[in-house]
C-alpha cells in the first residue's frame, strides 16, 4: 500500500459525486458553481456550456480507469446531447452561464472548450454527429480569426485576444487530428506562433490573464501552458513544447522554494500571495504530470503530488449542506480574488483529472 492511497481514492470519489451533483436535471449540463452568496437560496448557478464541454472527457476517462464509475458514460452522453442542442447555426457555442430566458452570446474560448467534449464523445461513441458539430465549431473559430492568428470578436474582453487562447488552438488541433483538414492545423499554428512571441526572457507569457496588462490568475496561466503542451503533442513540435515547458518549469521551481502557488502572478513572477487559486494548483499538477510522462524528470511528478495535496486538503470532506460535500472553493481564503465565495465545477473537474492521471502514473512506478 502506498502512503496516502486511501485519501486519494476518497478525494476522487468525493469529486466525481460532486460533479454528478452539479448536473442540472433539466438540461443535463453541469452547473457552473455553488454559492449561496451569488446564487441565492438555491445555491446552484445555471449550467455552464463551456465547462460542461470539458467535464465530458473527465467523466469518460473516469469510466475507463475505474469500472465502478461506468454510469458516468450516460451522464457524459447527455451532456453532449445538450451541447448539440444549443449550438448556433454557424457552429459557435454560447458563452456565459446558460439561462433559458437570457439571450445567448457567442464565445471563442467557450466554443473551444466545448470542442474538447465533443471530440472525446466522438472517440468513445463513434457517433459522427459529435465530430460534425466539433468541425462546425472549429470552422466558426477559424472563420472569425484575424490574419495574425488572434481573435478580435467574441472575446471575454472586447479586442483582447488573450494568451490562454492556446487552449482554443488545442481543440482546433483536436478537430484537425480527426479530420486531417489542413486548414485547422494552419489556423491553430498561426495562433500558437503569435502567442509564442509574447514569451518573455524569464519564461512568462504576457497577456495570459483575463484583462490586458494586469496580473494573471494561476488558472489562466495554467490554461496558457497546457495549450502549448497539448498542441505540441498533437503536432509533435518541440518548439511549441519548449515554450510551455520553460514557463511550467519556472512555476515549478517557485512552488518548491515558496512551498505554495500564489493566486496570481505578474510577468516578473512576483506572486499575489494573500490567496491561492485552487483550480490553478491542480491545473499545474496536470501539466507537471504530463511533463514527467514525456521527460521522466521526477521533480515534476513530485511537485504535482504536492500541488494535488494542497487541493485535497481544502476539498470539503463533510458538511451539513450536502451540496458542499466534495466541493473545492475558487480561492483560499474563500474571499480571495479568484471566484470569491464560490465553488466552481471546473475546480473539481481539474482535481479529478489530476487524480486520475496521478493514479495512472503511480501505479506504473
Amino acid at each position, binding site marked *: 500500500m*502506498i*502512503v*496516502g492511497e486511501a485519501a486519494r481514492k476518497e478525494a476522487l470519489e468525493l469529486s466525481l459525486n460532486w460533479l454528478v451533483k452539479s448536473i442540472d436535471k433539466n438540461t443535463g449540463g453541469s452547473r457552473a458553481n455553488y454559492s449561496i452568496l451569488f446564487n441565492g437560496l438555491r445555491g446552484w448557478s445555471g449550467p455552464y456550456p463551456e465547462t460542461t464541454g470539458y467535464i465530458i472527457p473527465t467523466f469518460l476517462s473516469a469510466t475507463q480507469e475505474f469500472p465502478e464509475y461506468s454510469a458516468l458514460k450516460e451522464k457524459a452522453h447527455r451532456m453532449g446531447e445538450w451541447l448539440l442542442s444549443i449550438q448556433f447555426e454557424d457552429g459557435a457555442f454560447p458563452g456565459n452561464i446558460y439561462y433559458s430566458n437570457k439571450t445567448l452570446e457567442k464565445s471563442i474560448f467557450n466554443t473551444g472548450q466545448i470542442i474538447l467534449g465533443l471530440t472525446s464523445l466522438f472517440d468513445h461513441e463513434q457517433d459522427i454527429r459529435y465530430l460534425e458539430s466539433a468541425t462546425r465549431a472549429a470552422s466558426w473559430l477559424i472563420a472569425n480569426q484575424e490574419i495574425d492568428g488572434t481573435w478580435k470578436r467574441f472575446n471575454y474582453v472586447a479586442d483582447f485576444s488573450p494568451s490562454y487562447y492556446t487552449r482554443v488552438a488545442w481543440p482546433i488541433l483536436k478537430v484537425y487530428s480527426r479530420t486531417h483538414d489542413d486548414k485547422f492545423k494552419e489556423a491553430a499554428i498561426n495562433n500558437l506562433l503569435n502567442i509564442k512571441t509574447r514569451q518573455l526572457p524569464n519564461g512568462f507569457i504576457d497577456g495570459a490573464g483575463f484583462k490586458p496588462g494586469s496580473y494573471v490568475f494561476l488558472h489562466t496561466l495554467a490554461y496558457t501552458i497546457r495549450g502549448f503542451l497539448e498542441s505540441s503533442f498533437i503536432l509533435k513540435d518541440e518548439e511549441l513544447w519548449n515554450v510551455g515547458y520553460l514557463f511550467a518549469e519556472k512555476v515549478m521551481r517557485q512552488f*518548491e522554494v515558496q*512551498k505554495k502557488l500564489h493566486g496570481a502572478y505578474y510577468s516578473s513572477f512576483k506572486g499575489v500571495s494573500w490567496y491561492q487559486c485552487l483550480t490553478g494548483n491542480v491545473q499545474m499538477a496536470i501539466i507537471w504530470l504530463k511533463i514527467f510522462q514525456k*521527460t*521522466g*524528470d*521526477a*521533480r515534476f*511528478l*513530485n*511537485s504535482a*503530488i*504536492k500541488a494535488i*495535496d494542497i487541493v485535497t486538503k481544502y476539498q470539503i470532506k463533510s458538511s451539513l449542506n450536502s451540496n458542499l460535500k466534495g466541493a473545492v472553493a475558487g480561492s483560499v481564503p474563500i474571499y480571495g480574488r479568484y471566484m470569491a465565495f464560490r465553488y466552481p465545477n471546473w475546480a473539481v473537474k481539474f482535481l479529478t483529472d489530476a487524480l486520475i492521471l496521478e493514479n495512472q502514473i*503511480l501505479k506504473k*512506478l
Partner: protein
Amino acid sequence: MEKLRVAITSGYVASKHAIALVHEINRISEVEVVLLLQVKTFTVRRLKQLLRMYGWKDAWEKFKNVFIGNSSNRFVDEVKPINSFLAERKIDFKSTNEICKKIGAQVKWVASLNEEKSIAAIKANKVDLIIYSGGGILRKEFIGTSRYGVLNAHSGPLPYFRGMNCLEWALFYNVKPEVTVHLIDSGIDTGPILKRFPIEIVRESNLSSLRGKSVVIEVVSIVEVLSNFQYYYNLRTSQKRDNGIQFFIMHPILKSIINNRLIGGWMPEIDCEEFMALKIRD
C-alpha cells in the same frame, strides 16, 4: 608539521552526527578540532526553517527522537545506525558542549552561522577548514572565512544529484546511492568534489535504515578525507553546473514507493553515468 585546525558546525546541541564527527576527527593525529559553532535550535527563524523543511508532523517526530528519545515513531530505524556507531566506539557524550569541553575545543553559540560573531570566532581560532554538520544555509562571507573553505558530506552522488533527499532521488532513478565529500560554494551542492563513497545496500533494508546508514557513512567519509586531507584536496575536481540536477524535498508518496521496492528485496542497478544518459537536465 602543523596540525589542520578544524571548526565544526552543529545544527542542534544533541546532534549525534556532530558529536560523532567531533569525536572521530579529534582522533586524527594531523587534525585538531578547535571550535564548534553551535546554532541555537529554539530561535523563531530556526523553527520556521525546520517546519518549512520537514512540515510540522515530521519536525515533531524528529524532535521527539532527538530530545525525548522516543522509540516508537517512524524515525527509529533512521537513528539506529548512528546509535550503533556511537555505542561501538563508546562515545557517550550527550551534547556537543560536553564533548567539546572534554577535548578542549571552544564552543560558540550563534543564532546563525553567517552572523559576525561566528565569523569572528573562526578568524580568532585561525581555522583552516570548517566541517559542515548542519545549521542552515551558508552565505559567501562565511564560506570564505577559512583557508580551505567548508567541507560537507552530501547524501547523494555529485555532481548528478544535488539538493534535498538525494539518497532517495538516486534510488528513485534506480541509481546506486553514494555519499559525496565536497567543498561548499555559493551554489547548491555545486562545489569541488574530493571523493565519492558508495552506500552498500543489504537485503531487507528499508528507506529509513538506509538514510540512517548514510548518516554514518557521511561521518566515516569525512574522517577518511581528513585523514589524508592534502592528498584529497589536491585531487579535487570542479563540477560543471549542467552536469547535475537540483532536487527538492521528496513527497512521502514517492518515498513510500521506494520503501516498498526496498522491502521487496529490490536493489538499484545503474551508475550515475547511465543516469545522465537519460538526459534529464536541470
